[in-house]
């Protein structure tokens, strides 16, 4: 199923449901409420893709890279493992536990590997994360019939073709404990029913679930290619993940600055800003204009310490946020938040382009959720 189908040369279009839940203290909870929440938005998906990302699920291997890989056949697995052996010390390798589940058919072979880069293969100067990215790109581009769909530390992505609640049951997610969970239900309009095409999309610790269609996809992709990212999936989501990785990890921008690039304020708004702020916005937009995400989207971007919600600058797709004590929610719709948390009262709708940033307290150093100050993009006159 993987063989030959990946490169159909265009993005695919999908409408979707997204849901994210995080405990700001880092306390663990299982996947059950996630399955309940995403199932509540069933009419936003059509059974052609669902998935989850969970952070904190592999504490026994917390510092190792974990690859989740799907294979067409044993030959693809052998070829991939040969490559992995040449680049990494494999601390553990096993089939990802699944159960037979109605609505989930013809799964590929699903394996996970806990890895550490070989010291000899990692050149002195090289950032180990870059090394991992290159390895992921190598397998996904060069090894026909194999696809790495998760490559972070102490986190994992579980996804496939089916309704998200069925995919959750298939992967036995109620047995995992994590402190950030995100989920996605997909409504693609031209899918080939490929498991790798489901969300979340992941690279290193970043994972992205996404509702929308990026009209700027063609140029976002070509810009990222200049920096060595091979977009093999042809989903908009992939470019968001790579864009975030480039801006935050490689270029060292803060999350609010990243949001200023992906959902940049209008020039007319920038022109009205105080001088210093205006200069920052101008330079970011001049430099990263090719990464502006145009068209309708709402996304939840997460890493090991943050869960970030963002909509396009004219807010063409829905996004709602909620907070109850240590729990933070970001969702396409409000109902599922109340369904799994009947004491939730504090909910709000972010403005277009305004990021919602939930950060682990130990990292943020403050009790408050960091709500980035309004960065301007919002409040567009959509008369």
């Amino acid at each position, binding site marked *: 199923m993987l063989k030959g189908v990946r490169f159909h040369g265009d993005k695919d279009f999908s409408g979707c449901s997204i849901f994210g839940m995080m405990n700001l203290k880092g306390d663990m909870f299982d996947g059950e409420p996630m399955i309940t929440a995403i199932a509540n938005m069933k009419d936003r998906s059509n059974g052609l893709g669902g998935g989850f990302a969970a952070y904190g699920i592999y504490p026994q291997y917390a510092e190792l890279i974990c690859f989740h890989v799907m294979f067409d056949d044993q030959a693809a697995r052998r070829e991939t493992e040969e490559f992995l052996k040449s680049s990494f010390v494999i601390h553990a390798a096993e089939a990802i536990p699944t159960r037979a589940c109605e609505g989930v058919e013809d799964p590929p072979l699903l394996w996970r590997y806990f890895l550490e880069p070989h010291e000899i293969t990692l050149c002195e100067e090289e950032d180990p994360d870059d090394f991992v990215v290159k390895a992921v790109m190598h397998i996904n581009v060069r090894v026909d019939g194999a696809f790495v769909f998760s490559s972070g530390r102490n986190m994992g992505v579980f996804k496939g073709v089916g309704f998200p609640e069925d995919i959750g049951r298939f992967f036995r997610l109620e047995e995992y404990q994590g402190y950030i969970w995100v989920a996605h239900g997909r409504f693609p309009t031209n899918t080939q029913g490929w498991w790798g095409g489901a969300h979340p999309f992941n690279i290193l610790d970043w994972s992205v679930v996404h509702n929308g269609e990026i009209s700027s996809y063609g140029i976002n992709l070509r810009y990222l290619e200049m920096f060595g990212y091979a977009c093999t999936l042809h989903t908009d989501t992939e470019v968001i993940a790579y864009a975030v990785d480039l801006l935050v990890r490689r270029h060292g921008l803060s999350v609010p600055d990243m949001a200023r690039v992906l959902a940049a304020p209008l020039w007319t708004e920038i022109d009205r800003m105080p001088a210093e702020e205006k200069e920052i916005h101008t330079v970011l937009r001049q430099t990263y204009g090719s990464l502006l995400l145009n*068209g309708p989207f709402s996304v939840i971007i997460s890493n090991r310490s943050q869960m970030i919600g963002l909509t396009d600058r004219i807010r063409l797709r829905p996004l709602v946020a909620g907070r109850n004590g240590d729990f933070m929610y970001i969702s396409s719709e409000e109902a599922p938040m109340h369904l799994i948390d009947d004491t939730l009262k504090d909910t709000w709708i972010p403005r277009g382009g305004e990021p919602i940033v939930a950060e682990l307290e130990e990292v943020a150093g403050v009790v408050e959720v960091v709500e980035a100050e309004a960065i301007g993009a919002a409040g*567009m006159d959509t008369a």
Partner: protein
Amino acid sequence: MKTYILPQYLIERDDYRCIRCEVCARQCAFDVHWYDEEEDAVFADESKCVGCLRCATLCPTHALVVRPNPTSTPENANWTTQVLHNIYKQAETGGVLLTGMGCDKDYPIYWDRIVLDASQVTNPSIDPLREPMELRTYLGAKPDKVEMREKKGKPVLKTTLTPQLRLDIPIMFSAISYGAISYNACESLARAATELGTFYNTGEGGLHRNLYKYGDHTICQVASGRFGVHADYLEVAAALEIKIGQGAKPGIGGHLPGEKVSAEISRTRMIPKGTDALSPAPHHDIYSIEDLAQLIYALKEATHWEKPVSVKIAAVHNSAAIASGMVRAGADIIALDGIRGGTGAAPTMIRDNVGIPIELALAAVDDRLREEGIRNRASIVVAGGIRSSADVIKAIALGADAVYIGTAALVAMGCHVCQKCYTGNCNWGIATQDPYLSKRLNPEVGTRRLVNLLTGWSHEIMEMLGGMGINAIESLRGNRLRLRGVGLTQEELDILGIKHAGS
């Protein structure tokens, strides 16, 4: 010597409509029409007619029809009338065939084989009348990344950008020199660029002092003849452009005949009045890429690193590799001029047979710069046959940051593309230095017509962008997924980097 060339046009005059006002006679600088008092009739010598339609346009009673002469040489696919006429002309004169404007041969126009996308269902289209739509574009080198640092707990920029040109619409007026066109035409371009928030280009003929006040919207060109290049000229410009080549005549220089070098032109170009202004084919201080780098840095140094420097080349076979070298040599803007690019005068054989279509050159250059990871280090501006807002938006989607328009701007001012610019007899007051002719172009009217044209184009661009669900031009730049080819071969599609319609 008796000429064997048949008149290219026939003029039919409706005697019932003709009121003997003699407008046609007065307007034609080629002396086609004359009034005979004795017979009280207007006559025409069609052998002199260039088909510029000035007479027919101004005739108050529409008494004139100018149409191609149906008498042609014997039908022959090889030996067409045009071919025979060229041979007769050279047999009669022994000279090089001259022409004006851009190549008129029917090489494929790829713009007309490319179609645009629009949003349906999965992505809402955006109505530019109700929602913001951004066309602002910055030309100049962009860094690989933006670095920030903390200052008193607040983030401040560590990165500073090199000088940028801000364009409110991604369309500029191409290089057309004072000399090739009249002062009034130059003034119209300068004023329109200022009003539109874009730029015009002086071409290689220097800049008249009276136009210095539009300097903030002026790109001053430095060409192989170095005409009119001096400290003030460099200082007053918003940006500088080194002209290596021109799409209408790649590989050769220029020649402004002495008759056109009036007192004003002599002063502006800094050459004696009445002498021919000859631009050498190459810059004699640029025989290779490292010499280009020296000139780029000399110009930057001379202008205190305050202005972006563009380098303009004709689109030729290996433009991609050349462009890569130009970027590495420090060019902030790469200007590419395709085979359909215009000129005031060029040898016909060169205009019509040297160079490549701009669409292919643009795609190849954009691809190459991306492959090398240096696309951000220079902006790409394309020229040569941009006829409409649709051509502009397709060029941007193929990878251009902005376009130059030359012919379209002249047409807006009245040009009818008769291709006789080199005669200096332009009846429309554009490509002439004759004061009697050039005063026909009122700069006030010229400015208005240019502003109207680009205002119309920018509305159309906004509509097309909105239709694609895009509200900022940078999201279309290089976004070739929004293009499809129609009736192109696989090889053409591969070079353009687009898919065929239906796939």
